[in-house]
């Protein structure tokens, strides 16, 4: 029996949003791959309701949860970009190969890439399906967003509660009417609806959504 739920995560480090905001279905698919130790096989058995009419999983994109005391904060995160590519970088410099690497950079200092991070007390996902299975899967991963391998977007699971407002609608749909919310106006885009398939015209929520928690 599928139920609608709100999944509340406690956020510890800023999330760096990719161009497409992470969604519950994409996050769960990543967890399934971790569980199977297989990053190539297609995932088609998520514990979420598949909406046949609309052609997508009933799982929302990430929503920043704020409180009266703590709002949504924008942080500038600077991470070294070219250090990991130093051998390749050295190889491209034909005349002046890098001979030694110092802590503060070598012949060329490591470049820092500036990312926009978002920090709020909570990060929420809404879904319809089996919340217990979702929790089990999410316990396998601890980070969300870009640069997750370098500690960005660190979360722990806070709570899962029943949802009455069809929060799962906050994700891309083929029709603008499927965004029943009056909290935002849908943005046209071209994205794939499911985990695989081709890009198609969709209407999606803005990249950054926030919600005040009591």
């Amino acid at each position, binding site marked *: 029996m599928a139920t609608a739920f709100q999944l509340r995560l406690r956020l510890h480090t800023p999330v760096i949003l990719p161009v497409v905001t992470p969604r519950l279905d994409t996050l769960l698919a990543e967890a399934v791959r971790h569980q199977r130790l297989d990053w190539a096989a297609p995932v088609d058995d998520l514990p979420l309701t598949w909406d046949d009419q609309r052609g997508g999983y009933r799982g929302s994109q990430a929503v920043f949860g704020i409180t009266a005391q703590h709002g949504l904060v924008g942080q500038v995160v600077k991470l070294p970009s070219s250090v990991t590519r130093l051998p390749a970088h050295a190889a*491209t410099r034909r005349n002046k190969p890098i001979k030694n690497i110092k802590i503060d950079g070598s012949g060329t200092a490591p470049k820092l890439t500036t990312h926009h991070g978002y920090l709020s007390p909570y990060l929420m996902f809404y879904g319809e399906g089996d919340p217990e299975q979702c929790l089990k899967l999410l316990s396998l991963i601890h980070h969300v967003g870009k640069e997750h391998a370098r500690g960005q977007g660190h979360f722990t699971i806070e709570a899962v509660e029943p949802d009455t407002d069809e929060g799962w609608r906050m994700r891309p749909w083929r029709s603008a009417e499927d965004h029943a919310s009056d909290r935002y106006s849908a*943005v046209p885009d071209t994205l794939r609806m499911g985990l695989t398939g081709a890009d198609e015209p969709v209407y999606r929520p803005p*990249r950054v*959504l926030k919600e005040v928690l009591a």
Partner: protein
Amino acid sequence: MSRGYALLHQATTGLRDPAMMDTFTPTTVSCACCRRAWDEVEDPGLAMEYQYGAGYAFESVCTTCYTPRIPATAMLGVEKLARGGNPDGGKLGMLAGSGGVITPAGELDLALPQGWIDKFQDGELGRLGRLHRCGAMALLLKLHSAGALADSHKGFVFIENWGRKADTLMGQWRASFSLSEVWCLSDQGAEPLDLAAMIDVARLVHAQGLAKKAVTPAFWRPIVQAAQGRRHDASLQKWTEALDDPMTVLAALPVDPHSRMRLTPVMRELIPLIEEGAL
């Protein structure tokens, strides 16, 4: 994802004279700049050679990513006379500090300072009246008011600053589909801006007689500091007291804190347009 590149390619077709383009069949997997596979780029299977600097290896980039490096003598005009009196065509990638817009119809308009307009007025874009003496954002809104972005679901491209680093600019090149999420492209990368919310805010503060104050950093400081995580309740309180109707302004602010941090510079662009009646 490719729509932005397709628009640039369409807008600059005249610039890529096949006789002048030294294309070759690449041996790499994808364009070194936009990372798209060679069968996904606008001129499939055709690459141009690019070198970051002396001593660096040659890289294969697609013709679209190479476009800002092509001298646009016919499209723009002559930038300067090189040694020996040969004319050097202006390049899109050398218009540092200037911006541009590609409309959904695939037409390029440039926002330039007067000096460049004088230089380029006899070029193709100059004769078509597509060189504008204004800021990049003012140009975008001018085109919006004129209805040139009406088909925004087909995408448009907003170049906030052509900058000096064409590889970063082209690597993150992308189309926008709505004023509520305008991707501002520059040689620093691509950042989204909720321009629709910014316009609402500008109209509201203008209507409340705060047009002069709202272009100063001091006015927005409590909001910007809160967006940066340095919320100061007393100054926020003082800020709300300065407005007739603070709640409508607060509700109209962009949700994205990174957009909020740009309130002052964006208001400096928008409020003069509202005062002129152009917005």
